[in-house]
């Protein structure tokens, strides 16, 4: 084997242009594939990550405005959900399907003050499940819990942005302090994380506390719950239609009016997203494989020319005792060596490109109004995928070289010697 590599090394050293061309084709193919997949993965990660922030595995319903006249009512009628809807949701019709029903009150704006600092807040009554529902990340302290709701505690959860405005020198130290909201005072029990730019900064208080102070009606802002039973997109859609249809009947909304109720179905959204991301992933792979094929074609093309060009040399080798197998081995080992070495270079450069993307493009956020979204998140390709791709190219390159190599090995020495 060592002898063979000496043989190949001298052949490669003395055919630099050919080696460089083959190598370039291989490196370029692998580089493009990995850079492409890396960027694609970054895009997917960003997409999924951004979605995960807003989408939870729940269904939420809010009252909105009708767009069609129905049952004697004019269009543009404001729909408000109330205790009746909660009772229906929790009722026998959906027993076993709907669980964990929770609700929020409408929100009331209030100016929060502490030691001369002030910040704008939206006070709303929530149930403990709201934390998971809204996918809030706690930065300090805790969220509203069942005891808070039961005992109507005057506690409030602020965002980190509020904390910075109210107590700039020690934002986290605000937990435990009493802040004023208008004429009332609430004790801060926790901070949830939010981006600086986020203007929708609710300041949750217990549901029962809100009802006692701001709104004694049985109106609710939203109803949220978990669903168990439906398994696929179709079943979830059927469930949603049945449930929302019932609510529409209760509120006399036209069955085909899309505006009367605002429904956010985390299950179907997730499923559609997964489907979309699956399609994007497949598209990326197809693009990648096409790139790889161009690399393979490059390699096999050069192999073809190489073998043709070296026929005379193979004739000499045969005349002095090279067996067909020796010639085959020489060509194949040479092609594997080139593709492997340059494939590795391409792989390395591709991963470097991903790294550079991570340090540049991925660091820049794009402002989408209420939030900053990073276009690329962790653009990288797993080492396994990179190695597999390189291996694939090596195998394909070898297979592509096999046919001309086989022909070269088969040609009679006298014919090979005549070739120029």
């Amino acid at each position, binding site marked *: 084997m060592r*002898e063979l590599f000496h043989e190949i090394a001298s052949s490669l050293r003395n055919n630099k242009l050919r080696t460089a061309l083959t190598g370039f084709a291989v490196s370029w193919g692998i580089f493009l594939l990995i850079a492409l997949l890396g960027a694609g993965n970054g895009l997917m990660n960003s997409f999924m990550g951004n979605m995960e922030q807003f989408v939870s595995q729940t269904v939420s319903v809010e009252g909105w405005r009708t767009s069609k006249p129905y049952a004697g009512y004019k269009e543009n009628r404001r729909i408000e959900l109330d205790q009746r809807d909660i009772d229906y949701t929790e009722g026998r019709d959906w027993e076993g399907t709907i669980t964990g029903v929770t609700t929020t009150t409408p929100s009331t704006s209030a100016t929060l003050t502490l030691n001369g600092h002030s910040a704008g807040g939206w006070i709303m009554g929530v149930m403990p499940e709201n934390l998971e529902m809204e996918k809030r990340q706690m930065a300090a302290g805790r969220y509203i819990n069942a005891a808070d709701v039961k005992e109507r505690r005057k506690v409030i959860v602020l965002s980190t942005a509020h904390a910075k405005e109210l107590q700039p020198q020690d934002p986290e130290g605000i937990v435990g302090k009493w802040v004023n909201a208008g004429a009332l005072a609430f004790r801060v029990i926790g901070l949830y994380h939010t981006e600086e730019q986020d203007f929708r900064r609710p300041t949750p208080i217990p549901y029962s506390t809100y009802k006692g102070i701001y709104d004694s009606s049985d109106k609710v802002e939203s109803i949220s719950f978990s669903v168990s039973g439906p398994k696929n997109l179709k079943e979830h859609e059927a469930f949603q239609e049945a449930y929302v249809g019932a609510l529409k009947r209760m509120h006399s909304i036209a069955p085909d009016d899309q505006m009367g109720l605002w429904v956010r179905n985390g299950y179907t959204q997730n499923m559609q997203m997964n489907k979309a991301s699956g399609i994007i992933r497949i598209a990326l792979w197809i693009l990648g494989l096409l790139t790889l094929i161009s690399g393979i074609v490059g390699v096999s093309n050069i192999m073809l020319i190489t073998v043709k060009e070296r026929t005379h040399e193979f004739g000499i080798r045969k*005349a*002095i*005792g090279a*067996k*067909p*197998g020796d010639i085959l081995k020489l060509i194949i080992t040479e092609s594997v060596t080139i593709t492997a070495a340059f494939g590795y270079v391409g792989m390395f450069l591709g991963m470097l490109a991903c790294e550079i993307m991570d340090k540049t493009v991925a660091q820049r956020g794009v402002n989408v109004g209420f939030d900053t979204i990073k276009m690329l998140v962790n653009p990288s390709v797993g080492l396994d995928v990179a190695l597999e791709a390189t291996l694939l190219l090596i195998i394909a390159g070898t297979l592509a070289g096999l046919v001309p190599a086989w022909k070269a090995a088969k040609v*009679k020495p*006298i014919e090979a010697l005549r070739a120029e």
Partner: protein
Amino acid sequence: MALIELKDINKTYNNGQPLHVLKGINLQIEQGEFVAIMGASGSGKSTLLNILGILDNYDTGTYLLDGTLMKDLSEKQAASYRNHMIGFIFQSFNLISFKTAVENVELPLYYQGVPRRQRHEKAMEYLEKLGLTSWAGHFPNEMSGGQKQRVAIARALITQPRIILADEPTGALDSKTSVEVMQLLKRLNQEEGITIIVVTHESGVANETDKIIHIKDGVIGKIEENTRHDAWQGGLIK
């Protein structure tokens, strides 16, 4: 027993029109002979040499090399026989251009599986014999025609073959170098007792050998004993 024994060898090329090149060749060459096969171009002399060198096959007849029948060999067997029994010298030298002189000489031993160090030593030994020690690290295109042919001769000799087959060995050389190369082959024949078969169309070259086999239109004509080297009085002139 003769080293080479040909009996009624026939060879036809079928490139479009069938071309009967060798029409029943009978020939015996003994161990240690220095023979020339002479003929005009198209006489079939190169085909005969290719068959002798197992580079090409024949249609009918028998070819015994050192008592072994050379017929219907696989490429692998043929390669092995070529490697161990035969050394080739070509008109156009047929050195591998991207290998140095010593690497070219080593190559037959590489295919015998001789370890690198050993074959290098041996190749240097043969280069020294041919006065090419200082050219060992040079590539073929840095050498003169005579030097290249001497490298080729060293490569042919390194496996210590039973026969050296030389196809127009002086065809690409000037007259002075031609004389040197023929003298070298003669010396190898006399000192080492190697059987040498030279194919040529030049009578001056043939005159240096001990036996001249004339071939014409695919059949062997007369065979001249030439021990006095007077078959061609003009000497080795081109």
